[in-house]
């Protein structure tokens, strides 16, 4: 009896939360992804690095449902996931902080945090937005992330780049995601805010959330990641456990292809 449960648990632990098989995506003549395989384990923090235009954003948008791959399969918890929209991906707990933040400038902070899942209350049989609850929960979420905004009623367009980025992060992290993808989430953040994001990543991972972190701040990867994947020109070129690599190795892997190409031309 207990053995069965243990086996089930072991199998569950070995089943990737997300598995990508042979993902391809083409934009006109550009092959953004040329057959990418990737496993993301439960509670794992995966760093995704690569040169600009390597295909990092495209790959993660495929996982979040923003793009539908031309070829390849996505498995979630071992099951073929048939989602084709961000709404469906979100429904099974996949959240993403997009590189362009995807905020609505003319909606207030609390409204952006709850965009697409606004709490409602019934007034005379009409379902109206529950502003009070949105505000209270928004306050709690932002406090937990050490994010200070002048006012929750402020339109997002009134905020600084770092504040906007923080709000995009808080929105993705707030609803207990099972998979959280962050595409360069710290590029506009100040030191203390970056620290808060790294703490958040560790805390969520300990709670079982699987995380993909794309960043150019390689030193951050060593502080939070379990594993690092390197992409180059639409393919996965290397995969390293964090203990097996260091900064120099990573830099070599990221520019490696380029260095070889340069050598080849010389």
């Amino acid at each position, binding site marked *: 009896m207990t053995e069965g449960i243990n086996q089930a648990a072991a199998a569950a632990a070995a089943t990737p939360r997300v598995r990508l098989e042979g993902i391809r995506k083409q934009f006109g003549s550009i092959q953004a992804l040329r057959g990418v395989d990737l496993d993301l384990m439960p509670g794992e923090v995966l760093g995704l690095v690569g040169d600009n235009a390597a295909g990092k954003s495209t790959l993660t948008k495929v996982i979040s449902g923003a793009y539908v791959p031309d070829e390849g399969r996505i498995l979630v918890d071992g099951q073929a996931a048939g989602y084709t929209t961000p709404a469906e991906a979100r429904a099974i707990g996949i959240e993403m902080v997009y590189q362009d933040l995807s905020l609505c400038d003319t909606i207030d902070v609390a409204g952006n945090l709850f*965009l697409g899942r606004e709490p409602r209350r019934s007034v005379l049989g*009409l379902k109206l937005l529950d502003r009070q609850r949105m505000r209270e929960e928004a306050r709690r979420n932002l406090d937990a992330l050490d994010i200070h905004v002048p006012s929750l009623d402020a339109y997002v367009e009134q905020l600084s780049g770092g504040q906007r980025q923080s709000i995009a992060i808080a929105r993705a992290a707030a609803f207990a995601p099972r998979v959280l993808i962050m595409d360069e989430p710290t590029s506009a953040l100040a030191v203390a805010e970056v620290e808060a994001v790294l703490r958040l990543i560790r805390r969520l991972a300990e709670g079982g959330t699987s995380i993909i972190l794309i960043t150019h701040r390689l030193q951050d990867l060593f502080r939070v990641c379990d594993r690092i994947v390197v992409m180059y020109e639409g393919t996965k070129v290397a995969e390293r456990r964090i203990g097996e690599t260091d900064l120099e190795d990573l830099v070599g892997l990221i520019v490696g292809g380029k260095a070889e190409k340069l050598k080849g031309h010389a």
Partner: protein
Amino acid sequence: MSTTPIYERRPTGPRYHDFLARHAQVLSIAAFFLLMVVLFSLNTNAFLSQANLLNLLRQSAPLIIVAVAMTFVITTGGIDLSVGSTVALVNALVAIALQAGVPWPLAVLAMLVLGGLVGLLQGWFVAREGIPAFIVTLAGLSILRGVALLLTQGFSIPIASDNWFVQIGRGWFLGLPFPAILAVLVMAAGALALSSTRFGRYVTAIGANAEAARRAGIGVQGVTMAVYVLTGIAAALAGIVIAARLGSGSSNAAVGFELDVIAAVVLGGTSLMGGRGSILGTCLGALTIAVIGNGLILAHISPFFTQIVTGLIILAAIWLNTKVFRGGRRR
């Protein structure tokens, strides 16, 4: 001598600054509306009379009704140029139906459904097929007016004045003209829907950043189609009210109506770029346009001036809004 830096949170200014900045456009159109009212009250005796004010309300009802719906369309970043032609088509068709002996409740219902279907079809081209709203509804403007002309051969079709139908345009309720009651109801429903429901929130979100809305799981296509259904139904309602008030249906009704509607919406501070809409502003904009038309006539100024003055006022108001009130905005 250097001073020690003091780490303290910067003080925030008074909250009413934010309030003024955010509502600048509604406040400015409100001020402008009051100015017009005062001007015409001083210059004409008839303007402030109860009969004239009630008449003004009755006449501006179709404009308000359609402008409320148009606010939703423009807030998504779209436009509906076909509303005037939809008004004409419904105006003519309802008269034809009543003349053929169709009971008025059935005729009214059928017209509202027709308006909704017209909107659905246009919304489908905009939302699902990705054709610019300007193009789709420009085609609609031409086609719908053409159908109305074809059906009536250009003749006006009378509606029997003993048919209860005409009360929709001429009747009274609680001391107010019935069309005005309709307009107030539409306005209240519109204001509530835009500011306090998910639907209204999604309309704003789509206008602000449609891709962000999609990524947040919002059914962008469905909401976009819905706003055109709203303008279609509102235009049908306006066509019914106008037919009932005039006691006839004509394919030449509401020529240029779409421009008055769009002017009312834009005067009220709704951004043509999408993402910002105010129903209150729209209603003030519609009333301002109505007051100008009415006041110029009472002041015995040639009605031909009305169009010139309306145009100038729109230009001035929008110019002020962009130059003066938008200082701190990104767009």
